[in-house]
């Protein structure tokens, strides 16, 4: 849907307030701590897998807030200049749900952002390589 200019945006069919953007559901994880189990955390892990923060898993991701998720959060927070807490704080969640480019931040284990510039960052496990 292209809107030639602002006035051209029709009043219809504005998406109703309840139609959520794909990642808005992640906001319910605010305050979620390491070691907890929360329904839907596997989808957040899939998000981090899509953008290169969590390697592929031979099995489905679990709903456990495990070390893997905590580590992914720390790298993500480093990349986006957030407080590196490893927790799902409000600031981090606000950034996670923001619209974005579909290209990964970490490609073939190499981060193109902040975390790639500090020697402490390294990834293990198998990464899916894509043509990007």
């Amino acid at each position: 849907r292209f809107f030639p200019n602002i006035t051209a945006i029709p009043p219809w069919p504005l998406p109703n307030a309840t139609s959520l953007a794909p990642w808005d559901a992640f906001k319910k994880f605010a305050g979620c701590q390491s070691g907890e189990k929360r329904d839907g955390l596997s989808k957040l892990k899939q998000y981090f897998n899509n953008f290169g923060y969590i390697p592929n898993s031979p099995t489905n991701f679990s709903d456990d807030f495990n070390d893997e998720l905590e580590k992914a959060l720390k790298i993500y927070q480093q990349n986006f200049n957030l407080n590196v807490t490893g927790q799902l704080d409000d600031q981090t969640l606000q950034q996670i749900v923001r619209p974005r480019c579909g290209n990964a931040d970490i490609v073939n284990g190499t981060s193109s952002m902040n975390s790639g510039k500090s020697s402490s960052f390294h990834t293990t496990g198998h990464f899916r390589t894509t043509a990007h």
Partner: protein
Amino acid sequence: YAFFPGRPFWPANRRDLTYGFLPANELSDEVKAVFTRAFEKWSAVTPLTFTQTDSFFSADIKIAFYSGDHGDGEPFDGVLGTLAHAFSPTNGRFHLDAAENWVVSGDVTTSSLSSAVDLESVAVHEIGHLLGLGHSSVEDAIMFPTISSRTRKVELANDDIDGIQSLYGSNPNFNGSATTSTTQERETSDGEA
């Protein structure tokens, strides 16, 4: 700034690049002009040139709008979320999510639609990928991965310019610094759906 692994770039004999639009999208000239403006941001600071062609399948850069799964293993996800993606040199594919509410002119920051997305801003970012730049942690850089709805961000920051010029060198007409624009990134909401 950063590059894709292996630092891919367009070789010296392919610096005058062509771009085409998927015919099935039937884009208007006004929409195509948005991409022309986006390419100009990069050609202004490098020796690269970009020319529109009507033959999509032989173009260096292939621009297409798709919804959902479109065969490249990276399905789009509807309104907001992932907006677009682009492939590294010399692949040239550039895909945008057809489900988004793309605004092509006017001040997107005053849009009444909370999910309005500025097409030129996203195009400038994705062209950076097409030329070989990865994502940057510099927040005012074009190559920063996220952009809120109702936000316009089209001017290259120094981080972007340094990155692209380390791949391709400078444009002789380039005066050497990023355009400072006070309206670079104005947003009135935080992408709330």
